[in-house]
Structures are given as structure tokens and as C-alpha cells.
């Protein structure tokens, strides 16, 4: 597979603040690639370095195999979409979309054909004669997207483009963006702090924290096999439950003990047990792999009920069927799916492999 973008050893500091610290990324041609992380992780700086808007202190950027580290933004031939729409208020949607092509002085017939193509792709044919003030936020975002799509760039770079939309529209636009990505077959590099956006749209996710890549993988890999404690709790909602323990023949915590399903860690080392809320069940089938606890709160969400349970001095969340009926203070037993638990080293926080 060829690479659309390769960033190698990128470091970037702003004064005393290190934004990127020896960052490596390899983005395959045609992929929907998401940079995911909290604010301050370096996502936007990474995007700006790739776009040529920011010069790295060290490292290189290759675009389709060609060294572009010193190239200007225009030479890189990338299209950017931001969370603010930045449309021309006095121009119609059609004129807004056409603006990058007019700037290049393309013939009118070709501009019209390209605008038409984009309008069809985005299902916004009916908006073409409207001005931004006559559009909803979602419509403006589509037009802004259209202005990027009307060119035929190497790759599309998007910086939290859905952040300002309300929840329902955001969900709709997620589906829409995946559809557009598929029909264009182009590389999308997409920045977000929303793990649901990352999980739902990406072919690959790079999880960033403090200017470093924590893990790169498909959404399922990141969810099922997080590389460290930080990734494990950043991805997934409710976040992964963590319980301190020591590892020897068994996993022993405060007020609980589970069989060790084969984690290789020598002699009484401190660790963190990680269990996702759906890998716990109040319907205990295996008595040998169960935790005792007290119900702290019950939160019905419709398709499921979240049960907060105190285990020793910790609180965990269990995903239960919507019919679960429990009272605060009630004693419960929760069985653990040992095939799906995680263990993290207490010092390094890295995931510990199974033997």
C-alpha cells in the first residue's frame, strides 16, 4: 500500500512548550485517518505541519513519496476544512463553492461542472442559490465542505469540522462524511477530540497525547487491545473500569480475587486490572470469576442500564440489560469475562501481554 502522507520524527515547540515530540505517522493512500486526542495533544499542530502552515523544528513530511518538508501550502496541494465555516456571507452557496476554482481562473464551463458535481455529491443542489444567512449550521458546514471538495487535491485535512453542530446533526454528518469519503476514494486526515467520531468514521486512528503517538490501529484494535492505560480509558464510553491489584498466581485486589488468565508478570507486581463495562455481567455464570460489590447508583438509558457498583474502595460501571432492576445499597455479584480483561503495569502503564 502506498502512503499518502509520511511524517517522520516531527518535533515542534512553541517557546518552552513542546507541542510535538518526535512524532511518526504513516497515512495510507485513500484512508480515512483520524488523529484523536484531548486538547493540547498536538493534533492540530500535526495537521498544520502536514499542511505546511507550521514549520517543524525537526523531522520530514513526505507526500506520496516526495519530500515536501520545505514546500509551501499551495505546492502541497492539500485542502483544509475547519470547524468555523468561513463562508463569504454575501455570496451564494454556488459562488462560495466555486471560489477556489475562480481563483485559479478556470474556464466558466468547467467551474460550473465541478460545482454541480460537488452539489450532487453533498446532496445540496437545492441550496445552491442561497446565501449563508439563509442556511442552517449543518447546511453551511456542507457548503464549506463543498468548497474543499471542488478542488481535486491530494488529500483532505479536516480540523474538528463537526464540533459546532448539534448532536443530531453531528450524527448525520458522520454518516455523510463516511459516504463522501467512500465515493471520492481520497485520503482524509481528520482531527477530533471526540472518540465516538473517531471510532465511527476511521479506517485508522492515531491516538495522540502530549505530542506523542500513543497507538495507531483500526478502531476495533484500539478498543479491544489498547496499548496502555491512557488509551484504554480515553477510548470507550463509559470509560474502562480500572482496579488496582497484584499479580501472582491470581489477580488480587482490595476485596476481590480473580484467576489469572495467563498474564505474564513475575512475582507480586502491582498492576491495574482493566475491564470494560460490557464485559461485566450481573448474571453470574462463572462463580470463580466474580466480584462482590454494592450498588451505588442505577442509570437507565433505554437500550441499556448502567449500574455503578462499589468494589472495595473503588467504583466501577456495569452495562446491564434495560430490564435490570436494582436498588442503591443492594449487594450484587458481577462476573468478569476473563477472555476480555486487560492488565496494565502499575509503573509504566503499558498493557501486559498474555502468555
Amino acid at each position, binding site marked *: 500500500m502506498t502512503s499518502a502522507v509520511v511524517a517522520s520524527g516531527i518535533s515542534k515547540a512553541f517557546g518552552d512548550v513542546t507541542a510535538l515530540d518526535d512524532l511518526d505517522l504513516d497515512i495510507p493512500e485513500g484512508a480515512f485517518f483520524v488523529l484523536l486526542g484531548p486538547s493540547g495533544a498536538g493534533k492540530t499542530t500535526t495537521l498544520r505541519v502536514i499542511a505546511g502552515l507550521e514549520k517543524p523544528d525537526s523531522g520530514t513530511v513526505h507526500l506520496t513519496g516526495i519530500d515536501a518538508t520545505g514546500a509551501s501550502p499551495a505546492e502541497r496541494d492539500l485542502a483544509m476544512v475547519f470547524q468555523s465555516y468561513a463562508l463569504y456571507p454575501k455570496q451564494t452557496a454556488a459562488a462560495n463553492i466555486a471560489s477556489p476554482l475562480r481563483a485559479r481562473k478556470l474556464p466558466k464551463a468547467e467551474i460550473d461542472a465541478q460545482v454541480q458535481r460537488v452539489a450532487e455529491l453533498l446532496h445540496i443542489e437545492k441550496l445552491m442559490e442561497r446565501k449563508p444567512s439563509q442556511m442552517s449550521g449543518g447546511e453551511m458546514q456542507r457548503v464549506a465542505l463543498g468548497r474543499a471538495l471542488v478542488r481535486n487535491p491530494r488529500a483532505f485535512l479536516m480540523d474538528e469540522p463537526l464540533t459546532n453542530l448539534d448532536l443530531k446533526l453531528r450524527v448525520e454528518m458522520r*454518516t455523510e462524511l463516511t459516504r463522501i469519503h467512500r465515493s471520492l476514494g481520497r485520503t482524509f486526515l481528520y482531527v477530533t477530540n471526540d472518540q465516538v467520531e473517531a471510532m465511527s468514521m476511521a479506517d485508522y486512528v492515531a491516538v495522540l497525547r502530549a505530542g506523542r503517538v500513543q497507538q495507531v490501529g483500526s478502531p476495533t484494535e484500539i478498543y479491544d487491545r489498547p496499548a496502555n492505560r491512557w488509551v484504554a480509558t480515553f477510548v*470507550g464510553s463509559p470509560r474502562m473500569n480500572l482496579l488496582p491489584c497484584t499479580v501472582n498466581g491470581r489477580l488480587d485486589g482490595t476485596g476481590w480475587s480473580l484467576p489469572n488468565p495467563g498474564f505474564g508478570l513475575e512475582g507480586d507486581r502491582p498492576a491495574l486490572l482493566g475491564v470494560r463495562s460490557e464485559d461485566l455481567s450481573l448474571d453470574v455464570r462463572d462463580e470463580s470469576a466474580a466480584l462482590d460489590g454494592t450498588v451505588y447508583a442505577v442509570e437507565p*438509558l433505554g*437500550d441499556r442500564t448502567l449500574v455503578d457498583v462499589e468494589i472495595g474502595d473503588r467504583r466501577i460501571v456495569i452495562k446491564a440489560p434495560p430490564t435490570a432492576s436494582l436498588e442503591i445499597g443492594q449487594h450484587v455479584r458481577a462476573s468478569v469475562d476473563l477472555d476480555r480483561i486487560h492488565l496494565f503495569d502499575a509503573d509504566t502503564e503499558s498493557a501486559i501481554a498474555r502468555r
Partner: protein
Amino acid sequence: MAEVLVKRLRKEFPDGTVAVEELNLEIADGELFVLLGPSGCGKTTTLRCIAGLEEETSGHIVIGDEVMSGLRPSQRDIAMVFQFYALYPHMTVRDNMAFPLRAAKRPASEVAERVDEAARMLRLEQFLDRRPSRLSGGEQQRVALGRAMVRHPKAFLMDEPLTNLDAELRADMRAELKHVQQRLSSTMIYVTHDQTEAMALGRRIAIMNNGRLEQLGAPMEVYARPATLFAARFIGSPPMNLIEAEVTNGHLTAAGGLKIAAPDGIKRGDRVIAGVRPERFTVSDSTSDPDAARGRVVSREALGDETIYVLETEAGLLNVRMPPTARFGEDQVVSVRHEGAAPPVYDPQSERLVGR
């Protein structure tokens, strides 16, 4: 604590906007009651009328057995909790909690007694001499509640208190708030536009729209049987599928041959809108299911613990919630069938529930 009654409340602003119209609510003593709706639905105005921050145009508010008309907020014996982080950083937990009583010049012995009582109920005893910055988010929230509790209010009123917190902390706070409220059996009226928060917290939810009550019920009732199409669209994510269908031989038939179990009380030939939750559909690659519709996978969102499919079918775009083990690809043509009992159905004109 006390019950709170809202009787035929109407609030019209000087510019002629009617924010609340003919609203009746009975909030039980010890209940966590949620007012839910989009911005502009009248939920905050209702809360402000209960608090005495707005004067009702007509109707009245009863707290305990006292009619509140004309009483100032300070005379109503209620605690407003707007934001949980408004603790004084330079004061200890004890001083933060004692603050409202000292400001009201209560005797020192009474202050100490009430603070100790609140600390015991909220399990804050070991933190009393610490500063807020040394506490976790959940502990700080308990302190903020404690500060409201020491005055022994008749009810707590809360307006989107969790809105500005990040998702992780919000989920923690939600459980914390629910736990404390149930342990204390305090009357709490909670305003939010977030349906997940409403479901998770409320014993009952009042869904408001355009100043009127759209539906009132327990979380699972409003989820299972939204009373109107508005409520159906507002509760649940991804949203309920609203599918045009005709009542045929003992079931509902939608375009593309999709068959859905029919409720009682509707008659053959009726045109209705069936409300089907995403988890009530299943996707398969079967080609011979007579009750299923064929559809193309438009998108698949693998969220880890579940996968959401959007299918393009003759009955429209359908959201389907499947376990993470389901592996259908984009553009794949699949079958989708409805599982289980009859869903709620709506009259397309009145947009209200029909049938049983």
C-alpha cells in the same frame, strides 16, 4: 423536603413571547424530577418561576403546602444549584459548607451541628479540613451539595449543572448526584437538554416543547412508548426509526416488504408511522426471509461495544444497533427484520400515539 406543585402555569414575556403555557406538574416529596427539552422549550423559565426569579403571568406554584405567589426567592426555602464548582478555593470544606449559615448569622452551635450532619450524610467527614483543590471532582460536587443542604431547603433546583464538564467527569457526577439524592430522599428539580442525562437521573421526566408538556413519565416509559413524534425524535440515540406503514393482515407493512408486529386498536388499511428503536431491528445476509426488507449498508459505525448500521431501504434510511460481532461491509446488500413485540405507532396527522 417537600412536594412541589406547578398549577396552570403560564409565563408571557413583555415582548409577547409565551414561554410556558398551561403547565401542570406534581413533583413528589423526595423525587428527582427532570424537565427536558430543546432550548426555548420553557424548561428554564419553569424552573425560574418555581424559584421566584420570574413572576408567573397566571397560575401558581406550591411548595410544601404553601402558595408561593409574591414570595421572593429567599423566602421560598429552596436551594438553587447552578454550577458545582463554585466553591471558595481559599476556604476549607467545613468553612465552605458553613458559609450560608454564617451569612444568615445562625448561632455557632447550630452551624457546627448542621455541617456535621451534612458531612455525615454525604460521607465528607474525612475531608472537612481540606481545601477544595485537594478533592476529586465527585467530592467537590458533594461539598457544593452539602453547602446547599445545610440550610435544610424544601427542594433543590438545578439548571444544567453538568453542562460545562467534560464527558468523563459528567458521567461520574451523574452517578454521584443520583446516589446522594436517593440516599437523602431530597426533592430535586433538574433542568437539562441532554436526553441521556434525563434518562439516567430522573425518576420521572417531563418532556417540554414550545412551552407545553409533551410527555410525562418514567425514563423507561418515555423510551419505550414516546407519546408523540416529537418525544420519539427527542429520546434515544441513534434516534428511533419512524417508518410509514400500512396496517395489513395482522401486522404493519412498510415499503420494501418490511413487516412489523401491529399493536391492538388500529384497523386494517390505516396508514400509520411505526416507531422502531434501532435495537429492535436485526441485520442478516438471509435472502429468503419473507418478513424482512432488503437494504444496502450506507454506513457502519463500530463503536467497540456495539456497531450502528445505517441501511438504505425502500422504507427509508434505517438505524440498526447490532453487537460488535456483526460484520457487514459498506455497500453490502443485507436483510433487515423487526424483532419482538409491536412498537408504538403514531397517527401521521395528529403525530400522537394510536393503538395499544
